[in-house]
């Protein structure tokens, strides 16, 4: 009885998981690619099937618009997507995506993809919602986020330029002969305070220092 239980458990683990998008936005007249892929513990079988169904917004009925089985893709030739569908997926790579051309406002609705990988057939179909717009709206918060990002970016830029300027100016000053400058000890202290990478070295026998670029 232990082996029977293990077999049942193994079968329950082997559910097929189907992935589509959650929501897709598109412009009127454009094409859209609805992607569908699945995860399965078994190798991709020769009898893998993909089927897409479409349910218009506000309607309770769904119609079948695409079916791939036995290595052949069958497209809608009677319904609302007649001559507008194209199979762009790769079943060998578990991709059952379709391309819908020349979108219209009537194409608003929910598209459901169901994939089966025999013997792995237990799974939940996944749905993607299509929204067709005349003008693609900017999602809430994008403009606000953009303003914040630009201001912070400018701030970072200002800080970077400031440190760059300080570094370049100090470099040019120290290309001169340090010994010829009066009060080299004070100059070394100034350079040290500026935070430049200089190591003041005391010249033996004197109380001046020579600053070398580290």
């Amino acid at each position, binding site marked *: 009885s232990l082996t029977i239980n293990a077999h049942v458990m193994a079968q329950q683990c082997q559910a097929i998981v189907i992935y589509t998008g959650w929501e897709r936005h598109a412009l009127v007249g454009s094409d859209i690619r609805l992607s569908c892929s699945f995860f399965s513990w078994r190798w991709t079988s020769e009898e893998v099937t993909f089927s897409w169904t479409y349910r218009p917004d506000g309607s309770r009925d769904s119609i079948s618009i695409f079916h791939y089985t036995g290595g052949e893709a069958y497209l809608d030739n009677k319904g609302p997507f007649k001559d507008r569908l194209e199979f762009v997926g790769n079943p060998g790579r578990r991709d059952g995506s379709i391309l819908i051309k020349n979108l219209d406002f009537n194409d608003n609705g929910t598209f459901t993809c169901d994939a089966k990988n025999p013997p792995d057939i237990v799974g939940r179909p996944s749905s993607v919602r299509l929204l067709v717009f005349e003008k693609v709206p900017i999602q*809430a918060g994008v*403009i*606000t986020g953009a*303003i*914040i990002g630009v*201001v*912070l970016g400018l701030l970072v830029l200002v800080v970077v330029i400031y440190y760059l300027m300080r570094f370049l100016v100090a470099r040019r000053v120290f290309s001169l002969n340090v010994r010829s400058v009066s009060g080299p000890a004070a100059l070394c202290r100034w350079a040290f*305070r500026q935070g430049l990478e200089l190591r003041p070295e005391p010249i033996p026998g004197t109380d001046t220092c020579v600053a070398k670029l580290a």
Partner: protein
Amino acid sequence: MLFLIGIFILHISAIVLLLVATIDNAWWVTDTMRTDVWGRWLKINGVWNLTDLPTGTDYPQDYLHAVQATAVLACIFSFIAAFVFLAQLFTLPKGQRFTITGAFQLLACVFIMIAASIYTNRFHVKESQGSYGHSYILAWIAFGLSFVSSITYFVLRKKSA
């Protein structure tokens, strides 16, 4: 030492007020409606529901984005000023002023002033019902606190290492 702690507490309270003003939903309130720059709560049949802000001529979207962005930026700059203050506390040479901290705090002050001013000028101008809520008032108080805080940083000198 006590003075420094006092300054820091002033700064922290400015940050807290800025956060409450930006996050809490009470810029304009009536009996059944509470709204701020992010959303609107409506009391329908005794239950509060979150709805989107109206989009129309009396709710200009671009000014709304400006208020949102400047309010968030004010919080961010005040946060940065707090960290810069702690950094300058340990790295500033003796006798120097906390100018960078003051600059950031002044930026935060200016940004929350811009946010509150735009909101006052462009939103709820013709509405007869309702009044400004506590978040709005706190935004102005935060403006005052951050202004005082930034002036203090511009004047304060580091006494000891």
